[in-house]
């Protein structure tokens, strides 16, 4: 399944699914303080280049209260900004209108910028809808679709690199991550015990489901060690398939 048709999880903030509380967005129908402010300007039918700050500020605060947005930092910040602008508007203007710097200028610039972006959103929304209304191919023939450009990288490559780093580094303080020691000997005993009872076993017979990572790795290393000592034979029909463990005759004789 490709990225476009991949179903989104319910907590994914990029999809129009239920919000997860950290998002003011979907709770109140506004995409933030600028969106709310633009809605007020539209509702009040005022000129965006000449906003009656005192009136709009009052409206903003009461809508915040109605929508229970009093806790939302972004809205509080905008409220504070509006109050500041309102106060600045009350200051006596200096001589000559040309010199007067409109305290609303920055806010107007941001509102226009935001509004322009909303317009792009409308375009994207339409394009996205058009695309959603057409299906791509979703059937994939098994043989014809290998994963694109897979990375040729094995665990042994990585471990060799760790080794290289350790040898080269003067400060090999690289040992803090793994908290548990492995118990390869213990795991070998388990495998031997299982193989005493039966000639064939599977991975799950020697490593319990839900095993701790150190148990998994111990089990794996134990199997490999016993295979090396010819006490058992390991086969895996295909990658990721269950490993089959067969008691070796030599091991039986020993």
């Amino acid at each position, binding site marked *: 399944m490709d990225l476009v048709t991949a179903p989104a999880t319910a907590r994914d903030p*990029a999809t129009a699914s239920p919000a997860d509380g950290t998002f003011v967005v979907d709770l109140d129908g506004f*995409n933030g303080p600028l969106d709310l402010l633009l809605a007020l300007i539209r509702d009040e039918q005022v000129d965006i280049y000449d906003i009656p700050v005192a009136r709009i500020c009052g409206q903003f605060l009461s809508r915040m209260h109605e929508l229970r947005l009093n806790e939302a930092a972004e809205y509080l910040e905008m409220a504070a900004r509006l109050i500041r602008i309102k106060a600045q508007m009350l200051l006596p203007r200096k001589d000559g209108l040309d010199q007067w710097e409109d305290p609303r200028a920055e806010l107007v610039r941001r509102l226009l910028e935001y509004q322009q972006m909303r317009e792009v959103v409308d375009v*994207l929304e339409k394009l996205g809808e058009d*695309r959603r209304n057409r299906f791509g191919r979703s059937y994939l023939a098994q043989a014809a679709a290998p994963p694109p450009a897979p990375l040729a990288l094995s665990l042994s490559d990585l471990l060799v690199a760790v080794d290289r780093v350790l040898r080269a580094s003067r400060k090999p303080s690289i040992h803090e991550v793994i908290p548990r020691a492995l118990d390869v000997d213990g795991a070998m005993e388990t495998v031997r015990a299982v193989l005493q009872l039966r000639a064939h076993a599977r991975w799950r017979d020697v490593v319990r489901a839900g095993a701790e990572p150190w148990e998994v790795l111990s089990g794996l290393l134990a199997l490999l060690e016993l295979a090396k000592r010819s006490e058992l034979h390991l086969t895996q029909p295909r990658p990721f398939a269950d490993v089959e463990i067969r008691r070796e005759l030599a091991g039986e004789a020993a």
Partner: protein
Amino acid sequence: MNSLAKLLEAALFASPRPIPTDELAALDAEASPAALQSALDELREHYDVDGHGVELVDVGGGWQVLTRPEYTEAIERAQLAVRPTRLSPAALETLAIVAYRQPIGRAEISEIRGVDVGAVIRSLHERGLIDVVGRAEGLGRPLLYGTTPAFLEQFALRHLEELPRVDELAIALRKAGDPGVPVAEPQPA
């Protein structure tokens, strides 16, 4: 249809994603670019003229066969295929800003939207619609984001220039020489 057109059709029916033109060219090493283009044209025309349920579209630098929109409702009603989830307004706003202002960092997007965009960026990044394209200078060298080919695919765009230019938008800044030109031209991905 000629044999190259048939081969192209077969490949396009085998792929869930648009196939880039150079990959289509790899299907037949002996075909010239002109022959490839004319086979694509033939295939498209065939779908259009003969009356098919599918059509050939040119998207994000590649080619894709898609069903025609008039059949979507019936297919969905019969539960034979599912339409992908719609993007949230928050995601669309963020994408719109990234598309027009790339490369752009999280702080700048947050500033334009007036809300923090960390979670939305993460999720758009996971969906492969945006990607890190560099780092800004300065404190902490913040990551810069840009749109991806999957973004073009999601909106069936051939390239970013298909989005409206800023001067084509209804809202334009009135004052000439305003320092804050709101949204730049879309940049090629």
